[in-house]
């Protein structure tokens, strides 16, 4: 393991490794060149690999995704940066009607190795359209893969695995965790891209979440432990497909599941997990699967985000409800 490095630096290292390993990998997006991206994730990469490998695009998300599709047809492996979660929607048509269906329409004759990196989520006090969690739109779309790292180590490895995938991958980066540091094992990768992982073992309630929520779940687990409740925490890592093995095994042990997300709960990835676990582990459940989500409203002005976004107390409230059954 390395010294602790920030998640954004780990992503930068992962992108650098991918660029060095495969000359067909390209980075494209707004402000990713000399500036290094508004979050500095691509800092220094244009200087190192040149403007033909790492380049600024016109300010047009549909154009970024649409031309990435053409580049992938040509044999490139484009990695697109969407500057903020709320700005992905001008590219939504190209992602859902074109990118997601291209391999299927070609009956497997071509693949679409396109990665779309999206800084997502709240907790940074940002203005409107800069704090959203739109993962469910993409998880709902057949043909796409959707992943989200929560640690620097996962960020380093998952971005490389996403780039190596021959399918399109939506890569949701928890922007509130960009500056959090952790160790990275640069020598070996422990987990496949689409695996979920137990990050804390416990016996009474299972908590599941992804990205920045994992840290909130860990805080909640420690608080619950102090109150005498044993919590297991699972980092989802992949939102499509979902690796249910560890989740179902955990629920068979604990009998209780709380799924948490920064996204609104209605028709969410959390809803899907709740339904699926109810089908897969009905006789193990001691309580209904509970969801802890943001409210089904637009993201409020930032001064209200700590009320809008689930925190450890909201998680614990759900833990208490689950324990009360």
């Amino acid at each position, binding site marked *: 393991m390395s010294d602790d490095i920030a998640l954004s630096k780990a992503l930068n290292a992962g992108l650098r490794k991918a660029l060095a390993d495969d000359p067909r990998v390209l980075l494209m997006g707004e402000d990713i060149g000399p500036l290094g991206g508004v979050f500095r994730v691509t800092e220094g990469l244009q200087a190192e690999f040149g403007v033909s490998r790492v380049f600024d695009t016109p300010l*047009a998300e*549909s*154009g970024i*995704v*649409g031309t990435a599709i*053409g580049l992938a047809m*040509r044999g490139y492996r484009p990695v697109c940066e969407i500057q903020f979660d709320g700005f992905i929607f001008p590219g939504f048509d190209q992602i859902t009607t074109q990118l997601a269906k291209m391999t299927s329409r*070609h009956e497997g*004759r071509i693949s679409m190795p396109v990665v779309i990196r999206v800084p997502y989520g709240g907790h940074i006090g940002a203005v409107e359209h800069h704090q959203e969690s739109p993962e469910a739109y993409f998880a709902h779309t057949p043909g796409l893969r959707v992943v989200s790292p929560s640690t620097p180590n996962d960020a380093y490895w998952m971005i490389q695995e996403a780039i190596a995938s021959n399918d399109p991958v939506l890569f949701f980066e928890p922007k509130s965790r960009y500056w959090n540091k952790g160790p990275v094992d640069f020598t070996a990768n422990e987990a496949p891209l689409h695996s979920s992982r137990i990050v804390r073992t416990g016996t009474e309630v299972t908590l599941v979440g992804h990205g920045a929520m994992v840290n909130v779940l860990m805080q909640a687990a420690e608080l619950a432990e102090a109150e005498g409740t044993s919590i297991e925490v699972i980092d989802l890592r992949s939102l499509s*497909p979902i690796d249910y093995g560890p989740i179902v095994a955990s629920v068979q042990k604990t009998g209780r599941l709380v799924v948490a997300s920064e996204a609104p709960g209605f028709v969410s990835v959390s809803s899907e997990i709740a339904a699926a676990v109810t089908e897969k582990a009905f006789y193990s459940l001691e309580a209904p699967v509970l969801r802890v989500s943001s409210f089904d409203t637009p993201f409020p002005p930032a001064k209200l985000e700590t009320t809008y976004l689930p925190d450890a107390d909201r998680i614990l409230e759900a833990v208490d409800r689950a324990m009360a059954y």
Partner: protein
Amino acid sequence: MAETAQMVQLLSTDGTIRTDDVSAEYLPIIEALPDDTLRQFYRDMVVTRRFDLEATNLQRQGQLALWPPSHGQEAAQVGSARAARRQDHIFPSYREHAVGMIRGVDVVDIVRLMRGVTNGGWDPAERNNFHLYTLVLGSQVLHATGYAMGIALDGDSGTGDPQTDQAVMTYFGDGATSQGDVSEALVFAASFNTPEVFFLQNNHWAISVPVKVQSPIPLYIRPSGFGIPGIQIDGNDVLASYAVTRKNLDEARAGAGPRMIEALTYRIGAHTTSDDPTKYRMDAETASWVAKDPIERYVRFLRSRGETDAYFASVAVEAEDFAADLRRRTLELGKPTVDLIFDNVYSEPHPVMDEQKRWLADYESSLATELGAQA
């Protein structure tokens, strides 16, 4: 949008060659063509019109879900398609039947798409880089631009050798020009200096909406605002379509940057077989375009060069045979297997595809067992 004084026309509606300042630049390209090539243009247009009619009839008879007729647009398509070189990549919309045929697509594969047998139809790599039809208007224009960016990155354009330098041509209509994707593609193309020709078939109607709703100015002017030269041609003149496309594609492949061609033509038929143009179009307008028919004027041109009734009759027979063969093979098309639902949604193994495919197989075999027990 009406024609302008800048419109390139080489062949008048009466079938005579125009000799004026506008045409002078392009006539040498036509004069260099062998007779066989000039005859090929005719064959392409006549066969296209005939199989297009056959496909329209097949839809009326319930054999196809939909058919977007190309009647009236044959010259724009044939001339431009014949101007492309073998190594070029073509990104069509969904009405470029003549272009597909010329690039080697089996027309029954277009019919398979419109019949609901496939969502694709052919392998572009085996069809001289004629990419799949795209039904979301304008989407393919961005793919074309990205592909052209890749050609430039690979150094496969701009070397100065027209036999190997590659270019991209993308087709779209007057309606699609209002899509943001077309404007974004023009922005990207200009910024990355792509080897690319944007070929706009202005057939004057986006289903029921006239082109004046899409643009108050002639559409060939629009790309100039993006830093891309635009040129207007008589899209019902196969010679203008060929010569202007040839010149612009060769300039683009040589590294001179993207261009747009606006081919003025007319959708003589309906938008698709689901449409009823009598509700929104004046008969007189359609009649004025029938008078500018691309095939009729080309017949006059070929006759003036000595082609005989026997030649025209032989092409007519070939077109009839082509259409009959298309009908026969369409009626023979089977239903795809259910594997098509699941296979190739992803390039790599996917647990949900495996699970749902297995579930469906079990479900169907359980139904078969149940039916067997009842029998």
